């Protein structure tokens, strides 16, 4: 059995980025002609492992065997030579080129006109691609431009790109993240037909139902380590979810029991569309009380970000009602909502939360610069900015810049402290924290969590939106889980285990 026909073997792979161990002694073996799923949370090391197979990184330790041969894959070109192809989460296509031009890019078929002048044989390539797309059921019109076709067609183009290069091993990184449910069904069908055509497929995902539907075997990664390899047919999704999120809690946040006050944030039947008029938040209703941390859990892209933006007024709401302390926010602009009592720590601190070329003092007053003491009769008072900044710098231990200096060179942790300091300083009854600790080190994370809990204890209503299950389990008083734009579960934090929350996040369970 051990000497079976493995097409890929990755043995004892370890990869470190600085102090972070992304993959720790991971060994996997993939049989020819199977769909092999890699399951794990955000940051579990799935993508890193596959990036090494595709030659984007090289492992620090360990060996890779392809078709029994030991190989060193030092570049994606090398991987292509070994018949390995990868569809990345973010497509790598030239928008204003046709489908054919994208597919042949880099290996253009050359035809000599009049036996002399070399030119790209697009007509021949069109025919070849038409034949290829028929053979695998990947219908595309080769002469259409990428910018004119839908996301699911673009994905097919990525797949055709691999097939055109004679790929035998196909790696898919979160292929369904960008697709609608019908498109997902279709993609899964394509995956099956590719496998039946003899291709080997590695599927990176954190959606259990997809694995259950198409995968033959499934490797579960957790924090860079391989937890288990399971036969999908004989394993329940529940067990997979448990293995995926089951872990020791890394550190526990010191927290007093909550004292709930009145309802501060009341969201009723909220619907939000994205730019493509696709419903991303669907009829969500919940309440957050004074002195409560309401944490929204969910896998990335299930509508949490839009929920926060809609409450803050950055995204228009399609339907529903949002009130804060009885004030209806529906028709208010961003500034008016801030005045009505909304503080917002956005997910993207550099692109949204700060103006990197503005000074520290200006950034700390980014929401109050127009009011006294910063501004009187439309004229700014620079001294007030500096004084205000000095106070917050010492209160929040912001390091690395003077009040007059720009915030661009500061570290991520200190930049986040600026935003947290500014938003807490507004003394709003409602505080929205979105991914407040993303990319920060342990010390900074602890600092932010303490601040958040201190605000709760002061009687603020806190809405925490996070992709980190640890953070949610540690900080929340109430947990709401979002799946596919809906709030599928709302319960007191102490009535749920991390595993149960994980199951709701995966859509395994529904209320």
């Amino acid at each position, binding site marked *: 059995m051990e000497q079976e026909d493995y097409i890929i073997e990755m043995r004892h792979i370890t990869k470190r980025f600085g102090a972070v161990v992304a993959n720790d002694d991971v060994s996997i073996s993939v049989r020819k002609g199977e769909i092999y799923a890699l399951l794990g949370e955000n940051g579990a090391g799935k993508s890193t492992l596959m990036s090494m197979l595709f030659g984007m990184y090289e492992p620090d330790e360990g060996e890779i065997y392809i078709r029994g041969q030991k190989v060193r894959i030092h570049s994606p070109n090398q991987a292509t030579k070994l018949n390995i192809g990868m569809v990345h989460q973010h497509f790598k296509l030239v928008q204003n080129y046709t489908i054919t031009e994208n597919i042949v890019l880099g290996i253009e078929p050359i035809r000599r006109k009049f036996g002399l002048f070399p030119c790209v044989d697009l007509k021949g390539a069109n025919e070849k691609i038409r034949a290829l797309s028929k053979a695998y059921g990947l219908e595309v019109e080769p002469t259409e431009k990428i910018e004119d076709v839908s996301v699911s067609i673009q994905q097919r183009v990525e797949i055709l790109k691999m097939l055109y290069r004679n790929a035998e091993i196909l790696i898919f990184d979160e292929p369904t993240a960008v697709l609608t449910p019908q498109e997902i069904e279709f993609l899964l069908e394509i995956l099956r037909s590719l496998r039946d055509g003899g291709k080997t497929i590695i599927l990176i995902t954190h959606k259990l139902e997809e694995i259950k539907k198409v995968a033959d075997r499934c490797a579960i990664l957790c924090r860079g380590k391989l937890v288990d390899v399971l036969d999908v047919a004989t394993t329940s999704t529940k067990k997979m979810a448990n293995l995926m999120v089951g872990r020791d809690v890394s550190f526990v946040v010191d927290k007093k029991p909550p004292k709930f006050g009145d309802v501060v944030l009341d969201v009723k039947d909220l619907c939000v569309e994205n730019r493509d008029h696709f419903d991303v938040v669907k009829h969500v209703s919940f309440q957050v009380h004074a002195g409560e941390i309401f944490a929204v859990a969910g896998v990335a892209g299930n509508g949490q970000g839009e929920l926060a933006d809609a409450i*803050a007024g*950055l995204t228009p709401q399609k339907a529903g009602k949002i009130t804060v302390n009885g004030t209806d926010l529906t028709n208010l*602009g*961003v*500034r*008016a*909502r*801030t005045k009505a009592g909304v503080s*917002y720590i*956005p997910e993207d601190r550099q*692109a*949204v*939360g*700060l*103006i*990197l*070329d*503005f000074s520290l003092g*200006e950034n700390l007053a*980014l*929401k109050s*610069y*127009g009011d006294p003491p910063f*501004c009187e009769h*439309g*004229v*700014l008072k*620079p001294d007030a900015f500096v004084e205000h900044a000095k106070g917050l710098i010492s209160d929040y231990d912001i390091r690395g810049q003077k009040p007059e200096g720009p915030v661009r060179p500061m570290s991520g942790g200190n930049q986040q402290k600026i935003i947290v300091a500014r938003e807490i300083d507004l003394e709003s009854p409602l505080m929205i924290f979105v991914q407040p600790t993303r990319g920060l080190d342990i010390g900074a994370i602890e600092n932010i969590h303490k601040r958040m809990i201190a605000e709760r204890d002061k009687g603020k209503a806190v809405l925490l939106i996070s992709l980190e299950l640890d953070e949610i389990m540690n900080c929340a008083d109430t947990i709401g889980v979002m799946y596919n734009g809906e709030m599928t579960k709302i319960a007191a934090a102490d009535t749920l285990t991390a595993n149960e929350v994980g199951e709701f996040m995966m859509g395994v369970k529904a209320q």
Partner: protein
Amino acid sequence: MNHRTHPVKRAFVKVLGGRRTQSVAIPIFCIVLSLLAAAIVLLCLGKNPLQAYAGLLQGSGLFPKDSYAAHRSILTDFISMVDNWTPMLFAALAVAIANKGGLFNIGVSGQMLAAGFTATVLIGYSDLPAVVAKPLVFVIGIVAGALVGALIGFLKQRFNINEVVSSIMINYIIQYIVSFFIYTYYVDPISRQSRAVGANARLTLQQVSIGDLNTVLPIGFVLAVVCVFVLRFLMNRTKFGFELKAVGANKRAARYAGIPVGSRIVLSMTISGALGGLAGVTYYLGYYASIQPRTLADMGFDSIAVALLGNSNPVGIFFSSFLITAISKGSTYMSSTVGVQQEIASLITGIILLFSACSAFIRYLVEKYRVQLEEADKAMAEGGKA
């Protein structure tokens, strides 16, 4: 040992790298570089660059000529340069305020022409007394320019039409509409330009006697200098300026902070257009008295480089516009004294503008070298320890 590695880079960083002095040091460096490059061109032509540069200064009234005609002196030359400087200063300020708001106003020429034409038609041919006519010319210039700017801003805010595209198109539209009206109603049969405006409406007083001298007197210059300080205050010390810079630096963050991004875009284009309008009236009803149909003023495009050379800072622009005007004004005299063609004089102005546009690149280079040197020093220090 340390100081001997990369001496050129080190000197480069030392001279241009000071955080406070950088905004002055880099433009001066650019100017010196361009003068050197132009000197090479002149040497190739067998001319003495020093003599040529002296000619530039003499022509713009910054250096005494050997002899003057009757009722002329270095002062009259200087004032006549200021007459040309005034519209350039307005035009560059127009570009700068749009820049601060993250917009590129390439339509200053069109705004100038719209304002100049409107004022010429409404006031230039009227019999109003000078005390009424001149202020009205300023007001009409401001309003006409502001309307064109507001239109560009509105198209950007409402329909997301890139301001560069709409400005260029509007430039054409204004240019041809104005040409049509000039040829149809206002043409001077001899000069083929619009008929000259009356002295009552002209913003540059002609034939003014000061002592023995006979000079022009550009009254718009006072307003231009006032604008420098008003804009400086507006950008640095007002709520509006703060919001404008926020929108220019990071639109998403500005929106997040509750700043009405769209209205700030329209407003900054409106102010920019108003300044362009002032440039127009001081150009077409000041420096000149008529409008040449079917052309746009080069000044509107040169002002972009002037604004960049001045780092979009009003005070910086005061100096950069002075420099560029002095050179272009002095180049006529230079071409006659040194005996180079007028084209060569324009070439040298062009070289200076080209180099001045490189200031962003030089700033980038300085930062790159600084990082390189810091890393090299660090590696050295660690190597020393080991």
